[in-house]
């Protein structure tokens, strides 16, 4: 029996038998013949639903049409008086009415970051026409990338503790501030009892959550809510961002976060993210999922392991992650139609990523884009959003432009997407990096 057949059979059995199906580790997955080739012999999960809550819009169509129009949603901070801070710009979500999106019971228990994640999850489930209540509860899990936790709630309760004493602290502080809040509350809201999890790798977290979702699915769980969200627009969180020395100090939005621009001067923090419904392909087919955006074809992650707070000397380990992800998909660099770049928006980090892309693709001018220039950096939520954008490119055969780009840096040598353009997109590579040296790459491909 081939490994492929074995896994497919196991996955089918899992769908049929629910909670008593085989589902764990080590052992239940055939080991790949060699590293980087597991995609050739193992299940490739598919994405059947997208839920987006971002500065560019709430819901897939609002987000995508705004992105294709190139609407800059970075703007001066309105959430608080930012005049005393060196940074004054952010990607805020306007028009987000938590009371319309999140049940009241959860609103009082949770932070804005969790509201965003729960709203995105509700939208994603609706988009996939997936009702967890119609399935055995162990068949569905939630694995989110997490970033800085519940900042609004956390800062408020810290203030109460230090001004009014411990009896003033909310009974919900212990469950609102910590990094598992969005995952835990989403599992409760939708009755999801599968192997849920929370991964943290700064900006790479959205991709890493999809990788963990793939591991979970390969061990027999049929459906995983994955992705991530972030909301760190409080005075204290902004102060923390500023200490990295990588936040743009520009005051005009057009001068803010500018991936791959000659005037790139740092990032602008933003809020938002995306939830993706990731399914075993046999399970998705069995339930008649209305659409398949694409499959998670390949993934790899590396760490620069250079210096914890300074950038690596070069992008060689990012290039390695890209190469391994492409090999994991059973593809070659020539098969990649577009790169959704990390686009850090700093001259040094952009130069590293450009060099890594050139190294992987040789002389071929693969189109490279980074629409997140329009919304800022959303930590784990940003990389989840990049995957959503890549899947929408595949769906519509269109490439979104790099956000907020005026003058491409002449040394990068990239074929940057300047205007939205029609293109047959079958396979996209998504890069995401995290502060400290995380490099993750994910390949999404039109469903076969």
């Amino acid at each position: 029996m081939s490994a492929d057949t074995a896994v497919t059979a196991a996955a089918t059995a899992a769908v049929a038998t629910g909670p008593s199906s085989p589902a764990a580790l080590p052992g239940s997955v055939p080991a790949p013949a060699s590293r980087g080739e597991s995609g050739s012999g193992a299940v490739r999960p598919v994405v059947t639903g997208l839920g987006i809550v971002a500065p560019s819009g709430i819901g897939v169509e609002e987000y995508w049409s705004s992105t294709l129009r190139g609407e800059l949603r970075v703007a001066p901070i309105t959430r608080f008086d930012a005049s005393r801070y060196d940074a004054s710009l952010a990607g805020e979500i306007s028009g987000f009415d938590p009371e319309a999106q999140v049940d009241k019971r959860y609103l009082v228990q949770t932070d804005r970051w969790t509201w965003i994640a729960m709203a995105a999850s509700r939208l994603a489930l609706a988009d996939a026409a997936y009702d967890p209540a119609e399935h055995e509860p162990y068949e569905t899990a939630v694995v989110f990338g997490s970033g800085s936790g519940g900042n609004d709630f956390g800062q408020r309760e810290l203030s109460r503790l230090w001004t009014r004493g411990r009896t003033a602290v909310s009974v919900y502080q212990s469950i609102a501030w910590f990094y598992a809040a969005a995952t835990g509350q989403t599992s409760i809201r939708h009755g999801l009892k599968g192997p849920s999890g929370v991964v943290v790798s700064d900006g790479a977290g959205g991709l890493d959550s999809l990788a963990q979702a793939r591991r979970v699915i390969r061990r027999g769980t049929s459906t995983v809510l994955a992705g991530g969200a972030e909301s760190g627009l409080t005075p204290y969180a902004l102060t923390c961002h500023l200490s990295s020395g990588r936040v743009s100090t520009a005051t005009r939005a057009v001068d803010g976060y500018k991936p791959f621009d000659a005037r790139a001067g740092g990032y602008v923090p933003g809020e938002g993210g995306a939830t993706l419904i990731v399914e075993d392909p046999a399970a998705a087919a069995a339930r008649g999922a209305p659409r398949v955006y694409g499959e998670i074809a390949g993934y790899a992650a590396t760490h620069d392991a250079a210096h914890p707070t300074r950038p690596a000397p070069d992008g060689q380990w990012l290039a390695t992650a890209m190469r391994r992800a492409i090999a994991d998909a059973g593809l070659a660099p020539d098969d990649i139609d577009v790169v959704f770049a990390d686009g850090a928006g700093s001259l040094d980090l952009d130069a590293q990523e450009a060099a890594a892309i050139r190294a992987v693709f040789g002389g071929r001018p693969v189109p490279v884009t980074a629409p997140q220039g329009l919304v800022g950096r959303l930590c784990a939520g940003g990389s989840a959003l990049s995957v959503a954008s890549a899947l929408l490119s595949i769906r519509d055969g269109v490439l979104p432009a790099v956000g907020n780009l005026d003058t491409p840096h002449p040394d990068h040598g990239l074929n940057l997407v300047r205007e939205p353009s029609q293109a047959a997109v079958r396979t996209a590579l998504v890069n995401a990096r995290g502060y400290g040296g995380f490099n993750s790459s994910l390949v999404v491909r039109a469903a076969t």
Partner: protein
Amino acid sequence: MTAPRGVAVTGIGVVAPGGVNRKEFWTLLTDGRTATRRLSFFDPAQFRSQVAAECEFDPAAAGLGAREIARNDRFVQFALAAAIEAVEDSGLDLRPTGSGGLTDTGPDGDPDAPVVGVSMGSAVGATTRLENEYVVVSDSGRHWEVDPHYASAFLYHALVPSCLATELACRFGAHGPASVVSTGCTSGIDAVGYGAQLIADGEADIVIAGASDAPISPISMACFDAIRATTARNDDPEHASRPFDASRDGFVMGEGSAVLVLEDAAAARARGAHIYCEVAGYASRSNAFHMTGLRPDGVEMAEAIRVAMDAARVGAHDIGYINAHGSGTKQNDRHETAAFKRSLGATAYEIPVSSIKSMIGHSLGAIGSLEIAACALAIENDVVPPTANWSTRDPACDLDYVPNVARDHTVDVALSVGSGFGGFQSAIVLTGPNR
């Protein structure tokens, strides 16, 4: 079909209350001594719970450099110290990039060079540093628009807990997949479970896996005060953590870290490494019920145990030791006892069950890794650590909790479980090297 890769534990490092290395930790546990005391890091007078299990930790003595100490919260310092001990114990030559270690062939070098990953758990990350810095920049909470001019240089390093994985990757030249798992109080089990998955699936050959937390700070004490999860037995701190005892009234806040070196078992055998045990099965389920509440029936934890045992291909009679979550809250110990009976049947009554939280408190996400370390050492030594402070039977907790005195007992298979805020229920099965 290619055989799945086994996962061996070849190194263990520990920073725990009452013992800041592996040997001291095991001695404390097998002596049945407790490290719970009146909280000393700050004046706890205003708090409902004033007890904690604190580490006597000197980062410089543990081998950390001045800059590592300056830029990192205590939770990262613990993990660095534990990892230094674990890597040394494994005999693997893991050093910073550029200093000639095992991984120094670079991304384009030897394709057979091992891929070294990092999978570390933490429930609350750098909360302590974030609170300390907040107090300064907000002038003791008085200003919502905090003054950034008083902030220190490494606050972003504290804001996102992935700094934990980064620091270990840099210290040991680990260029493979790295991440932090943050599933509340099951983080330590889940991080080791995820690390084992990386090896089983061929994504990495060696993984530095474990967890760390240092949550003894005013905000954390206030959080758990507010929901009365921690003990109020302030007049008798040394006996305040009382898992499974009828008089238990909440957990004792702890801190610490344990780090394991996980390796592809075949490679570990080929190099003649000492193997403590193998990670043979892991599973996690959610109760989808309540962020902090537990139903008394233990159904989801029982399911996690059953799936982990299936993966490990062990039955109830094979299990020689159960390391319980045993936090010492009323609801947890009852829930967990029910889960053991539901998953193991009548055999549950024959298996020694203990909670080391009775001695070292509950270090949130870290404790799962400390408990796995204890299980590995139980297998290594054929000794089961006790549940300290046990004196009065609770009718709802009627298993063999190894009261107060360690027991010589053959342990070929150990089960460790955890239960976390968010509804997470995790189980991991370790098997002896000769099984």
